[in-house]
């Protein structure tokens, strides 16, 4: 993850800032510039999400993604934010305590790092509410 690429989305990651289309009233997170329904007719504005949501589905990852090796087994899930959009996040919970439909809330955690000498990456994860 390059420095500039991460920095560009820092605020969106730290503070769960996505978009709302004033034209069709849909909410989007992760952020995007073009409304998928309205396209050029859309009027996208920034929107900060509450961080409250519900777990739609999840898995327990035993064979980790690069950089996550020391965290296995970890829970990865799809969260539906109360405003509507869904996102993918690690779920901070014991695997046996996780179930579809559980209420979750956002927390500020470290996402990873670019090696021992590189940048630290912070962002939002979710935990049972």
């Amino acid at each position, binding site marked *: 993850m390059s420095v500039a690429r991460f920095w560009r989305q820092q605020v969106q990651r730290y503070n769960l800032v996505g978009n709302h289309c004033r034209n069709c009233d849909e909410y989007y997170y992760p952020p995007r510039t073009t409304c998928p329904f309205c396209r050029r007719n859309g009027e996208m504005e920034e929107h900060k999400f509450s961080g409250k949501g519900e777990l739609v589905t999840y898995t327990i990852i035993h064979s980790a993604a690069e950089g996550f090796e020391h965290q296995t087994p970890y829970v990865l899930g799809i969260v539906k934010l109360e405003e509507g959009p869904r996102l993918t996040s690690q779920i901070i919970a014991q695997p046996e305590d996780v179930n579809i439909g559980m209420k979750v809330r956002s927390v500020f*955690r470290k996402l990873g790092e670019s090696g021992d000498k590189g940048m630290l990456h912070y962002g939002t994860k979710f935990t049972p509410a």
Partner: protein
Amino acid sequence: MSVGIVSYGTYIPKYRIKVEDIAKVWGDNADILSAGLMVNEKSVPDLDEDTVTIAVEAARAAICRSSLDPSRIGAIYTGSESHPYAVKPTSTIVAEAVEATPEMTAADFEFACKAGSAGMQACMGLVQSGMADLGLAIGSDVSQGAPGDALEYTAAAGGAAYIIGNKEEEMVAIIEDTYSFTTDTPDFWRREGMPYPEHGGRFTGEPGYFKHVLGAARGLMNKLGTSAEDYDYAVFHQPNGKFPSRVAKMLGFSKEKIAPGLVVTRLGNTYSGSCLMGIAATLDQAKPGDRIFATAFGSGAGADAFSFRVTDKIDKIRDKAPKVEELLANPVYMDYAMYAKHKGKIKRS
């Protein structure tokens, strides 16, 4: 001309390790240790927690508690001895995460366990001089103790954040005054690049902790013309339970007065967050009109003493964010192997 605490927030990771599980590994006597240190267990950060994440959670709790507009924050100072970057401030990450940027100043502080209180003093100055509307001072640490060293039993993780302001309608505790006592005393240190701190053993006691805490505490009480009877509560830096208990006695504070703030028994020493956590735990239950005496200590060495008077505004905001007792409740225990993994004590490459 007054200045005070407008809000406060804390964060404690949910994991703990018991003194007996550490003692098992090194062949120490857990009962004697627990009794001697007056510490039974300490907090352990999750694999994805560090000084920055803890500082952010504490700061967010403070802002949430008071529903303050974060753009009013004119300064953020995070004090820690475990900042994840040696160069690149924790405070700017916090600033972005609480939406206080860009019209503000920031810097990171280091003064062992009193880096957080030093930040509070700096904020007091900025607010009183009119240079800032609100100041945010945070003490946050994921402190390390060398494997097998005495400090390993107490070095814990946690943080507390204080928003300092001077509008009468906003202050929940007025800071009546502050007084510091500082000398160059090498009781505890960590060289650049070294993973664990060094300490002077018994030297950290009298020439370190006691000389400076007493110096600052007595200095403040002289200046204000107060004594222990004038206070309802007292909070001291808590490297263990013994030191604050002894210094409280020396200053004339009863066990009852220091009890609410003495969280170290169940938490360990959160270093820059230590005294600040105790103050928060006290504010969680203090009533309007109560007076709180606090003295933070940092090795190197220095102590910052504060005299607080709680206002009636505390009742409005106290319940709006998690209390220290709530964060101490329902801990999840781990064994030494998991603890070592979490604290990066296992050499992986």
